């Protein structure tokens, strides 16, 4: 049989919440499966053990929940607001009444007043006093302008004069100074140039002279040493040559000597060989 009681089914069966066909299926399954039976038995024992925990007796304390009655009509929030507005309006009106305040609006003019309103006096036009005529004013202006002009001209002329004088003065003194300076400088410069050139020439002459002296003496010395060196060289060369010739001669002499000796020996040996041929033959 393919059916297997799930954990969920077992639980439902254990707590008697299975009915009809499902219950039968689980019972059939339990009959067929010993281990499932055993497990269920264990669970039942456990339930029995759990049953030992008894409920605790407890007395319910009074539970107070905030006043849940519908609010009294006077306590309705909007009514309260309206009432307070009305009360403040009433106070304002009473204060106005007792202080005799009047508010009026007429001829585009809002008037708030305490007590009786007083009508404002008409504004009095200002009376201008007859004074100077335009002509007179013009004359006064002209006179003062003329005065001013005169004074201006005077001061202007004076300053011009002073300025001219000072310029002339300045020019004269400056040109004199410059002339002086130019004269001094031209006079001084001619003399100085002459002196300078003469000094230069003298110096140059001296330098050239000493240079020539120096160079000639040096040349002399150099040539002398050159000659000496050359002589020395020649001497050396001659010596060397002489030595070479001598050694060659001596070696030649030696050679001839040895040759002479050899020939002498050969000759003597030949002679002796010829002299005693027999003895020679027996000897060997």
């Amino acid at each position, binding site marked *: 049989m393919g059916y297997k009681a799930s*954990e*969920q089914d*077992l*639980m*439902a069966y254990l*707590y008697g*919440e299975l009915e009809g066909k499902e219950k039968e299926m689980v019972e059939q399954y339990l009959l067929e499966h010993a281990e499932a039976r055993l497990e269920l038995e*264990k*669970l039942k*024992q*456990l*339930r*029995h*053990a*759990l049953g*030992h*925990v*008894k*409920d*605790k*007796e*407890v007395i*319910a*304390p*009074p*539970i107070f*929940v905030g006043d*849940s*009655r519908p609010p009294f009509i006077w306590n309705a929030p909007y009514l309260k607001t309206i009432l307070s507005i009305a009360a403040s309006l009433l106070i304002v009106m009473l204060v106005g009444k007792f202080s005799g305040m009047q508010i009026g609006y007429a001829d585009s003019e809002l008037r708030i007043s305490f007590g009786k309103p007083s009508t404002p006096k008409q504004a009095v036009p200002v009376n201008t006093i007859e004074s100077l005529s335009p002509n007179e004013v013009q004359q006064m202006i002209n006179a003062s302008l003329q005065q001013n002009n005169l004074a201006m001209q005077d001061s202007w002329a004076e300053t011009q004069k002073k300025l001219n004088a000072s310029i002339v003065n300045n020019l004269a003194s400056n040109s004199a100074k410059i002339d002086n300076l130019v004269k001094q400088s031209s006079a001084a410069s001619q003399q100085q140039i002459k002196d300078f050139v003469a000094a230069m020439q003298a110096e140059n002459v001296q330098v050239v002279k000493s240079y020539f002296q120096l160079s000639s003496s040096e040349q002399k010395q150099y040539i002398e040493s050159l000659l000496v060196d050359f002589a020395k060289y020649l001497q050396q060369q001659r010596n060397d040559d002489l030595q070479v010739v001598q050694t060659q001669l001596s070696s030649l002499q030696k050679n001839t000597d040895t040759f002479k000796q050899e020939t002498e020996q050969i000759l003597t040996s030949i002679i002796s060989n010829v002299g005693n041929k027999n003895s020679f033959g027996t000897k060997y």
Partner: protein
Amino acid sequence: MTETLLDIAMMHSDNLIARAKEGDQGAQGKVVQLWYKRIYNFSYKFFVDHDLAMEVSQKTFISMCKNLSALQDNTRFKSWLYKIAVNYCREESRKKKGNRSLPFDLVWNRDAEDSPQWESSGNRTDNPERQLQQQELADVLQEALLELNEEQREVVIMKEYEGLKFREIAEVLNISENTVKSRMYYGLDGLRKILERKNINKETIGYGI
């Protein structure tokens, strides 16, 4: 489960709930009287702590009185009420986790469980002694419950002690009925293992009277 007068009254409280819903304070008070013991015992088994259980129960019923008018289906009152209670239990549990200290009596009792005193008093059948033994057994069982994780504990308590149907528990927790059954299965399995570890078996429980 033997039904007491209270249980019967609870089962036939539709009329009372309807009146409480309309704001009848007397009816609300009666509803509280009827259900207080159940909610208290539920949260007591959840925490094994009288003060926390009282707090959760009171919060639950205050919330109930305030929100009763929002309850649409009177027949679902029971699961609705447990839903509130479960939520407050979880909230308190989160708060408790906030301070990391372990309650002293929990540590102490764990040592006491393994003490030889418990084993020696196991097989006595003396009446006063037996009562004491029963009490001790209840304590051990409750501690075993505490060792389960919260999800399984909720389901086991609601099923085993509060007698809710799987369908109702599913409604309370907003999960499927099958999930509830699985949690129940693993909860019971876990309990059995815990009790085995504590050496509690048929003999120690003492079958029969």
